[in-house]
């Protein structure tokens, strides 16, 4: 009898997904850190500058959560286009959070780079 192939989760895929999830919030905060952006604009910005493809079903709930927690501020603007747009920008608290996240990111990246270098993989 022929054994059925066992379906396994590719650990690399899992790792990529975890990395993507972990980086998404930072990427969103960075995208609204310099200028206010609306949802579709954030999606396009992330897609163009990072190849990070996010769907409507992913980004709006995250933006909603960041707004509710006071990290970003949202404002409806209705005088630019025939339909109103909801713009997001970093709040004072969000700016502080972002600074801390970037410090942590930078330190983490340099540690990993150090390990890569020590392993002779560069």
């Amino acid at each position: 009898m022929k054994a059925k192939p066992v379906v396994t989760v590719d650990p690399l895929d899992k790792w990529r997904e975890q990395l993507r999830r972990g980086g998404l919030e930072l990427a969103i905060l960075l995208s609204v850190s310099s200028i206010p952006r609306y949802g579709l604009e954030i999606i396009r910005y992330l897609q163009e500058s990072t190849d990070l493809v996010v769907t409507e079903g992913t980004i709006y709930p995250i933006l909603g959560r960041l707004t509710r927690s006071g990290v970003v501020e949202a404002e409806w603007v209705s005088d630019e286009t025939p339909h109103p747009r909801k713009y997001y920008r970093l709040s004072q608290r969000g700016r502080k959070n972002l600074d801390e996240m970037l410090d942590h990111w930078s330190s983490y990246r340099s540690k990993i780079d150090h390990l890569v270098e020590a392993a002779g993989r560069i």
Partner: protein
Amino acid sequence: MKLNEAGEARVRGYLFVLGQSLKSFLPRAVVMDAVQELESHIRERIDEAEAEPDERTALEQVLKEIGMPQRVAQAYSAEITIEEAITTGRVAPTVRAFWNLATTSILGFFPALGLLLGYLLGFGSLLTALMKPVLPNNTGLLVVDGVPRGFGVFSPLPPGAEMWGGYWIMPILIAVGLAVLILTQRFATAFLVWWRARRGKSDKLPGWPV
């Protein structure tokens, strides 16, 4: 592209279905805000689109790219409820997240059932402990003709039945109840973390950076 009356009706219909689907899982205020925001998103996409080869086809293409309203609502509500459950670790958001999973997928149904049983067992144990001082002769292990038949609060007692267990069962029930609730909550959070990672993969979103 500017929509004619039929196109406007199609968009309104899409938003109506979206709102109805979201209502099942999310509070009213969140639904209203989500629908308003997604309407803005859809209209933005429509504005950018060219009416090629004709307006109807172009509109259908935009809506197809965004996804069926039920699917968008499902992704949206799952993202909100699961995120809230994982980040807060509270019982109410966890129940909402499992309700969402149980009603939208077969794989989510059985863990939701397990969660329900865990909560029932945990709260049941605590409630039984609280009832012991109120109904001391009706709370404990029910034994009928020397055979154990159940554990809890029984009133009135069936003929030939006697209750086993004194006040000493109270601390045991409280400890068991709390342990079951904590383990259930931990299992629930771990499952939601796993589910989110799995769903992220099934969305076929590319990893980052690639």
